[in-house]
């Protein structure tokens, strides 16, 4: 039973780690690029928004599976 909780913790933790690193890089690059070319700010914001959607797809599905493990398999 404990293994299920460890598995859920790994899924959520590693998903959050990946998403955190990705969002940090994304936000940092957005600020850097906007400082270089402020006239491109709108396009860069749109691209960041689209990339954010792609970036968090796997962690979001991971959260769903982890909740299933915690509340249905272990519960």
């Amino acid at each position: 039973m404990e293994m299920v909780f460890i598995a859920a913790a790994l899924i959520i933790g590693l998903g959050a780690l990946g998403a955190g690193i990705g969002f940090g890089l994304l936000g940092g690059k957005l600020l850097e690029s906007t400082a270089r070319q402020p006239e491109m700010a709108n396009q860069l914001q749109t691209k960041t928004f689209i990339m954010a959607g792609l970036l968090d797809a796997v962690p979001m599905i991971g959260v769903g599976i982890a909740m299933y493990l915690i509340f249905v398999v272990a519960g």
Partner: protein
Amino acid sequence: MARSGHRLNRVPLLRWLVIESTAIVVMALLWATQGRLAGYSALVGGLIFLVPNTWFAYQVYKVEGARNMSRMVGNLFRAESVKIALTAVFFAAVFNLMEPIHVPALLFTFAVMVVMGAALRWFMRPRPQR
């Protein structure tokens, strides 16, 4: 900050919402061929995706323009954290409060909507206002 009523980008928020809602209903109808419970679970799975994502899109485009970019990045980080937290809370609530539930229908619809949402934002991206 961009004045209210004067947007720099035309964000098709309502269009995304309509297309995603339609896709959820279609998925729920397809799953309903397996039984009423499966259809209902698919609908719930789609809604778990739809609510946090609509809020995320609204938060990210609340501020626009080069001068507000650091505020926009702060909003992006906050919105992402809240989106993941909301998704976890919704899943926990569904698994605890809804008995019985068709888990494959719920998770499959959610996963399909996550991928479809990203693709939709790619193909129907916000356009700069002229």
